[in-house]
């Protein structure tokens, strides 16, 4: 569906993205992750034919985004960041206008507009002025707009930014449903969302692709596989020293809460040291009130890969 070859974009000599290479296959939901300024919006804008690349090629549904821009645009639904909408129109009016612009056949316009309103739960606000809508509704109007001409591909730039947790959940479910019939490329900062919806993830940092894989593989690859949290009453023992002796434990950070001490253990990838800890605790007669394994999350992957040095 999307093929990107050596895509580069420079703004006034400074490269925003450099030599990007990736593919998104039909039916995939691809997550596009990266710190702010990494180049996500730039890449999406190039794919949406908003601006041409400085060099390289990109094709959408087989059409080159620069040379065959009109056909490429007809096959994709794009939702820009911060969803810019005409605030002087009403929701239905706006969707009718967009449907006509996207080439939806005249007799099907009412039907399609009705369908997308249903899909994005816009029926309650269909006659409201867009200026009067809350952010959540605006986002949904943007999403409805992207769906109007039944495109095979959806490109969504930060679809859940600024939404409250309920709305995020709704949009997430919507995207998951859409993923069954459309190919989706979405960019986001909200990592749990990516873990839940995306089949593959691209991590982009300073204009280059750092990783491109399924969430599971990425989690498996990183060195720090989460860790173990222990809260125990160790009495006179030096808990950290003892814990470090267990094989597989790389480092221990100690924290005091009166009698109880919290130990945060960094563990070798794949090693499960909880049993060892339990044996140690029973041997030493420590009281334990918490022993959990913190699973590695995509956030760990992200932080590790991007080092978040850009603030």
């Amino acid at each position, binding site marked *: 569906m999307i093929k990107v070859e050596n895509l580069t974009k420079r*703004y006034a000599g400074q490269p925003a993205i450099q030599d990007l290479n990736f593919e998104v296959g039909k039916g995939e939901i691809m997550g596009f992750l990266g710190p702010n300024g990494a180049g996500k919006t730039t890449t999406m*804008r190039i794919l*949406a*034919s*908003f*601006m*041409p690349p400085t060099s390289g090629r990109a094709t959408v549904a087989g059409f080159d985004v620069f040379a065959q821009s*009109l*056909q490429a*645009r*007809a096959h994709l639904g*794009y939702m*820009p960041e*911060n969803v*810019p*909408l*005409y605030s*002087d*129109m009403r929701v239905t009016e706006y969707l009718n*206008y*967009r449907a*006509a*612009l*996207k*080439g939806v056949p*005249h007799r099907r316009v009412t039907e399609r507009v009705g369908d997308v309103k249903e899909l994005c739960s816009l029926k309650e606000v269909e006659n409201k002025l867009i200026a009067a809508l809350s952010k959540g509704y605006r986002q949904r109007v943007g999403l409805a*707009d992207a769906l109007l001409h039944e495109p095979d591909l959806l490109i969504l730039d930060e679809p859940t930014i600024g939404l409250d947790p309920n709305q995020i959940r709704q949009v997430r479910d919507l995207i998951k449903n859409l993923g069954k019939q459309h190919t989706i490329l979405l960019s986001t900062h909200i990592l749990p969302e990516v873990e839940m919806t995306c089949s593959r993830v691209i991590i982009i940092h300073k204009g280059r692709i750092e990783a491109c894989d399924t969430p599971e593989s990425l989690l498996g690859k990183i060195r720090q596989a989460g860790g173990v949290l222990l809260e125990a009453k160790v009495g006179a023992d030096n808990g950290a020293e003892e814990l470090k002796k267990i094989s597989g434990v790389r480092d221990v950070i100690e924290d005091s809460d009166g009698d109880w001490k919290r130990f945060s253990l960094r563990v070798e990838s794949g090693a499960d040291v909880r049993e060892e800890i339990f044996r140690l605790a029973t041997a030493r007669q420590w009281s334990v009130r918490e022993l959990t394994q913190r699973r590695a999350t995509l956030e760990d992957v992200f932080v590790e890969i991007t080092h978040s040095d850009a603030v």
Partner: protein
Amino acid sequence: MRKFYTLLSREVRSYFHSPIAYVVLIFFLLIAGVDFYFQVSFMNQRQVQYTVQEAFFNSVFFWFAFVLIFPLITMRLFAEEFKLGTIEPLVTAPVRDWQVVLSKFFGALIFYLILWIPPAFYFIIFQYISGQPAAHSAGAYLGSYLMLLLLGMFYLSIGCLASVLTKNQIIAAIISFCAITLLFFLGLVQFILYDVSSATRDLLGYFSAIEHMGTFSRGIIDTRPIIFYLSMTVVMLALTYQAFQSRKWRL
């Protein structure tokens, strides 16, 4: 063409959704009304050689209002879309750039023509009340409205060009105001400067909007200004189109 009409109808509707349209309408109709009133009351007091309609279209009031409305009508056309970011969904929809540019131009033109409908009624009312025609002949009406159309097209296209060059509406208004006023004054030079040779005077007369309106409002339809304004409009629109396309590269 359907997409062009969709864009066009949206443009015209959006004019009437914005307060500036009503400000321009009121301002313009106020001045047109005052102009008409003054011309008629002037004629009430003495004999004149010209008709009401000629007086109306050649007076100071007319030109003053006329030159001022164009920046106001056109400043938001492109500049607002750039500023608000609504240019992004517009341009990423499968529409061609010429459809966008021309729909904005013709949207402005339609709004401008709507502005000129009420003054037409002044002449009808005058004729009804006084029993005398407001103009020499039908040709005079035709001429003056034709010149309005030509001048409108040209100045609106200048306004479009100004608007596409910037994100800031005020700057767009200033650019088009300066350009239109300068062009307008080109026609006045012959009256202001005395030591201009007659050749220069003639040359400047070809460009003078005042002279053009003068001849057309007397019913003399000269093809030279028609060609001048039509071709200049096309040039301005072509430049607007190029500037619009170039924004992709300028980001």
